[in-house]
């Protein structure tokens, strides 16, 4: 196994892979830099941007003043956390049932649930839009929480199912013998044991909901608009706007980027949807 790798090889590898990695990361780095420049300086040639003057925090304040970042931010938080929370509430019992009381149809049921995910959102855009309009929940957070919960429910169920499958049923049976009711069995035994799996499910779904940009763009206008909408409002340029757009972008992606980096481990597990070990 342990074949000695020379430091030189390692340095060369690091240089090559590092450069490629840096290129992939570059757009993000670049907006982070631009967001701290004045508008005039932000559109200079790259080297001048880097080494020239004109560093400022001003764009961040301008963006907050112009489009009320915090309102959009809190909408994003409420929508992504809310949809994930309610999704879990429905998915945990369902996944418990499928993982621990499998029936002949369980596999089919699971496949059917996943297949609802194949339904292209645009196929049901019109009726959902009209229903929402008639119920008066267009541009409300609760409406979006519901839609995004439904969008992610199959994924949540699927992921929880794969995690629950790894837990030996005997432990739940032991709990049952010990006198636990179903609620206690799920609350005190299953859930704590599945914490890592639940964590990666939660993370992935918060990220998916945070970045969801079909329903959030089509069903909100102002009141309930999350950060996807906040950024979309920068799509039509008004004069010099690179620094402001950069600042707005950084503000929109920073929370989730940081969350994602810190929870990389759980996320990798979650991202593979339990399908790759």
């Amino acid at each position: 196994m342990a074949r000695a790798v020379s430091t030189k090889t390692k340095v060369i590898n690091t240089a090559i892979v590092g450069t490629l990695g840096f290129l992939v990361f570059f757009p993000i780095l670049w907006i982070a830099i631009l967001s701290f420049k004045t508008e005039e300086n932000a559109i200079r040639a790259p080297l001048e941007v880097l080494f020239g003057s004109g560093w400022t925090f001003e764009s961040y304040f301008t963006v907050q003043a112009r489009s009320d970042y915090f309102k959009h931010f809190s909408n994003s938080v409420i929508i992504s956390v809310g949809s994930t929370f309610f999704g879990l509430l429905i998915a945990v019992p369902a996944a418990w049932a499928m993982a621990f009381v499998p029936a002949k149809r369980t596999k089919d049921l699971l496949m059917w649930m996943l297949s609802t995910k194949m339904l292209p959102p645009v196929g049901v855009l019109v009726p959902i839009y009209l229903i929402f309009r008639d119920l008066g929940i267009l541009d409300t957070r609760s409406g979006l929480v519901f839609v995004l919960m439904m969008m992610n429910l199959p994924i949540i169920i699927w992921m929880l199912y794969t995690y629950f499958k790894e837990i030996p049923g005997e432990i739940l049976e032991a709990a049952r013998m010990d006198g636990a009711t179903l609620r206690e069995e799920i609350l005190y035994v299953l859930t704590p044991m599945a914490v890592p799996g639940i964590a990666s499910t939660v993370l992935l779904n918060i990220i998916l909901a945070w970045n969801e940009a079909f329903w959030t763009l089509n069903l909100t206008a102002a009141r309930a608009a999350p950060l996807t909408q906040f950024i979309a409002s920068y799509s039509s340029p008004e004069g010099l706007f690179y620094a402001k757009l950069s600042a707005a972008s950084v503000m929109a992606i920073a929370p989730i980027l940081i969350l994602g980096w810190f929870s990389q481990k759980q996320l990798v597990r979650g991202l593979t949807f339990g399908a790759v070990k």
Partner: protein
Amino acid sequence: MGRIILDKVTKSFGEVEVIPPLDLEIDDGEFVVFVGPSGCGKSTLLRLIAGLEDVSGGHISIDGKDATEIPPAKRGLAMVFQSYALYPHMSVRKNIAFPLRMAGLDKAEQEKRVMQAAEVLNLTDYLDRRPGQLSGGQRQRVAIGRAIVREPAAFLFDEPLSNLDAALRVGMRLEISELHKRLATTMIYVTHDQVEAMTMADKIVVLQAGVIEQVGSPLELYQRPRNTFVAGFIGSPKMNLIGGAEAEKMGAATIGIRPEHIEISDTEGTWKGRVGVSEHLGSDTFFHVQTEASPEPITVRTTGEKALEYGQDVFLTPRPEHLHRFDAAGLRIE
């Protein structure tokens, strides 16, 4: 109390009948061992008694009450699983206290009982560890601790020692036997292991394909197997079963003779044969001797000092008082 009666209990998984109608009585305080080949339905039977599976037919009564429809938690039984099934996220203390917590006992009472159980099982030093930080034997003890704190009417064990290494197994075997003596509670114990069955049981239940082949004390089963299956299953090394002409001579379809009931001699005897493989265990030696009497080699048990060459000619003589005779259906002829 812990008198368990199975009355015409059956179990099918879909089309497959795993347990045909089965009757069994287990007396209060008895140590009953279920043995049988893999897949014969031992675990299924245990889980039926526990209530983890529904019976397909028949009734189970516990202490005179019909328990067939009672959920597992309410049957007053405790189970120890092969995989221990400890709660990995709880400390040993919390594991043992879990059934008490579920029963709604107050904290002080929980603590008292946990301490009692821990003392009995030598776990006092480990109470704050997680199951992951324990050895196999310690985990097993925690699982037992979790069972005894409930003061159940009966304990159910499903191959509790099969994940332990040989030395630990002997230790735990003694501990469980001792526990049984001390608590005098009914125990039902599933195992693959001959020695466990013989040494621990008051009563052994031999199962094959869901059917009880024989019920009896270990010695009864050893000395008077009811049929060829039990004869071949109980005892290690196995009883030699010989059919054909040799059996006919004695008026049976099959005769059986245990390895320790055969004399071996260089000069004279009933069956002439040639020594094959010898297994020296130290205390005993097993010789596998190929004879004309049967196509299978006959196993002979002698003292540890005995030594024979491979290929050497020998003579075997079964002791007539220890011969078992079986008819064409495999049933014992008295």
